[in-house]
């Protein structure tokens, strides 16, 4: 499969995530759109790792080129899991204080 197809697909997913972050006001949906953008990047990393592996396989059949990309994806998932737990705790705390999940309430942080 040509690598351009993967790039276009991941760009579309990433842009949908950006549009979601810009247009929605519900803090939980904004957070889900950030997850969507992370997933688009993950898929692109795996596609590029397979691209480099395919190129290196022609020279050396026993090569492990491209493992790094897949491990980056693994670490991104690890960090995303930690990020979600803290972020949802912050949203719950915000809901408890304001009884709303509107992100515009967060501008009260400046006082």
């Amino acid at each position, binding site marked *: 499969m040509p690598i351009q197809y993967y790039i276009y697909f991941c760009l579309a997913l990433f842009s949908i995530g950006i549009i979601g972050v810009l247009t929605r006001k519900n803090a939980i949906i904004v957070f889900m*759109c950030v997850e969507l953008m992370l997933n688009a990047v993950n898929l692109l990393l795996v596609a590029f790792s397979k691209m480099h592996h395919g190129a290196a396989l022609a020279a050396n059949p026993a090569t492990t080129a491209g493992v790094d990309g897949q491990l980056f994806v693994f670490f991104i998932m690890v960090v995303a899991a*930690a990020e979600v737990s803290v972020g949802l705790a912050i949203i719950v705390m915000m809901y408890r204080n304001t009884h709303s999940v509107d992100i*515009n309430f967060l501008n009260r942080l400046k006082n």
Partner: protein
Amino acid sequence: MNTIQVLFFFLSVLAIFSAVMVLVSKNPVHSVLWLITVFFAISGHYILLNAQFLAIVNLIVYAGAIMVLFLFVIMLMNLNADSEPRKNLWMKLAGVISGGCFLMVLISLVRQTIELTGKTALMKEGNIGLIKNLGKALFTDFVIPFEISSVLFLSAMVGAVVIGKKD
């Protein structure tokens, strides 16, 4: 058009449709369910690329753990379509236009790149995505980041408890 191409386009269309539905759903619970569909489609892409370990981890961590966390929080707050905050139409239009401009710029950038022409991603072949090879690399070259991530998890857990504590 062979099977892999058919599967690729089917999964891509499914993922993009579900991602759009995440945005346009009024009910947050429906958004979460559509997002789970996106994650399943992306796992299908991983399987097409023969990255089996990541496909399973994506399902377990994202579709399993993180989305359950989201559902719990939404149900805890008793959110539904009525409690959706209103945003005016011009702001939405501005957001869509700026996101579309971003997509246009990057697509034209990729179309002009000569280095990418003729490059293909290896489908359903190559064994770097199997657990054996990934585990070997994880516990030799990447063992220090792996151990640091355990500290990160511990601090995230303590942080979530401290933030969520009622005082």
